[in-house]
């Protein structure tokens, strides 16, 4: 048996894959939130649409899109495998558990938060990714900014997006620093810094994402 297969079968190996894919998905979030923040230019979506157009046609981005889906699928498959093993590791549960005494609730709820994010992602891709893809395939002009305005004019979509972003916030609050720990990057000097960056990163990214449906729904972005 090659060591590579052994690595992916081991608990530590699987966690390392979770960490690497997690950090990769975080790097995507930076691009995503950065580009979408162009709506705050409030120039009728000119800057934003230029960015969206670039993303939809640039060959490097096209390749990265496939890598991104690959990373997402790997993250999900690994988490399912890990969860199934974890279930088996405690066949008889405790009658009384005081989890709050020793850990944060969201660190114990990554699976639930992740599932919530996956459901949100299906809605989100249906709202934006699918229409953009259709337009590119049919060689049509597509105004993503107008699409955004249409989606966020409906209050229930605003609500769905806020719940999704809320799930992302807590998933990131644990996931950001946890990824470094899984990769073995723990250091007396740098770990407190990583934790602080993780908290601020999660808050800033999620606040920006949350501001998009809210400002658009309230008609502040024209």
């Amino acid at each position, binding site marked *: 048996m090659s060591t590579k297969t*052994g690595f992916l079968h081991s608990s530590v190996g699987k966690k*390392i894959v979770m960490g690497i894919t997690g950090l990769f998905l975080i790097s995507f979030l930076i691009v995503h939130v950065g580009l979408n923040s162009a709506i705050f230019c409030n120039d009728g979506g000119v800057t934003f649409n230029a960015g969206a157009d670039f993303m939809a046609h640039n060959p490097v981005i096209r390749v990265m899109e496939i890598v991104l889906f690959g990373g997402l699928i790997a993250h999900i498959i690994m988490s399912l495998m890990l969860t199934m093993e974890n279930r088996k590791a405690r066949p008889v549960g405790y009658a*009384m558990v005081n*989890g709050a005494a020793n*850990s944060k609730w969201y660190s114990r709820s990554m699976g639930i938060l992740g599932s919530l994010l996956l459901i949100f992602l299906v809605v989100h891709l249906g709202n934006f990714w699918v229409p953009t893809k259709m337009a590119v395939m049919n060689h049509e002009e597509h105004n993503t900014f107008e699409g955004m305005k249409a989606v966020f004019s409906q209050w229930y979509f605003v609500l769905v997006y806020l719940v999704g972003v809320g799930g992302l916030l807590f998933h990131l609050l644990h996931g950001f620093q946890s990824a470094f720990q899984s990769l*073995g990057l*723990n250091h007396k000097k740098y770990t407190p810094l990583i934790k602080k960056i993780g908290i601020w990163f999660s808050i800033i990214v999620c606040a920006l994402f949350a501001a998009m449906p809210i400002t658009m729904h309230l008609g502040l972005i024209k």
Partner: protein
Amino acid sequence: MSHGNMNLTLKVWKQKNKNEKGRFETYDAKGISPDMSFLEMFDVVNEQLISSGKEPIAFDHDCREGICGMCSMYINGRPHGPKQGVTTCQLHMRSFKDGDTIVVEPWRSAAFPVIKDLAVDRSSFDRIIAAGGFVSVNTGNAKDANNILINKDDADTAFNAAACIGCGACVAACKNASAMLFVSAKVSQLALLPQGQIEKKARVMNMVKQMDEEGFGNCTNTGACEAECPKSISLENIARMNREYLGANML
């Protein structure tokens, strides 16, 4: 905090053996002194049970001074009860109030089968140690301790990792019943010292393999193990083991 003697209600897990299904049984613990340890309280209850012809509650204990790691009891939802940095034998009844109901369960993990009531079989830990938690030394005279110079920081970190008593509270506390804190402490204490460097690759590979084979869960980095560890073993050890494992696989 109570000063006078207390009357308590205990809900204790009773299980005949590994294969039989267990259940909770309720016991009255009367006239318990706040100065007793949690195990002494069990001694009193067992004395009463024995003298009235009933079966006593089986529980593990040995040194009763917090160094053997035998007293595995999950008390009111936490390993070793409500205090931090102590084992069950170091937990005193003054941590409870008169009239309290205390729920006591065994460690719950597929890798720690229940022997009887609160006593579990932790020999899976022994098999992990046997897989690599050692340094191979040729026979002969012991060398002078100062022949090999060791950085004080490394020696201290290794010593802190070696403080692990293998009690299994990390597994009991973990939502995934993961043994990462235990295994990483044993990997770290040797990997940090020159004597342990030589076999470090095989050690981490074999110990992680054995850990997985025993049926322990995976680490989610919740930090519950570190918070509940009676010897305050640091999460840094888990990161070190992950690093060692990654290095052993890649290089």
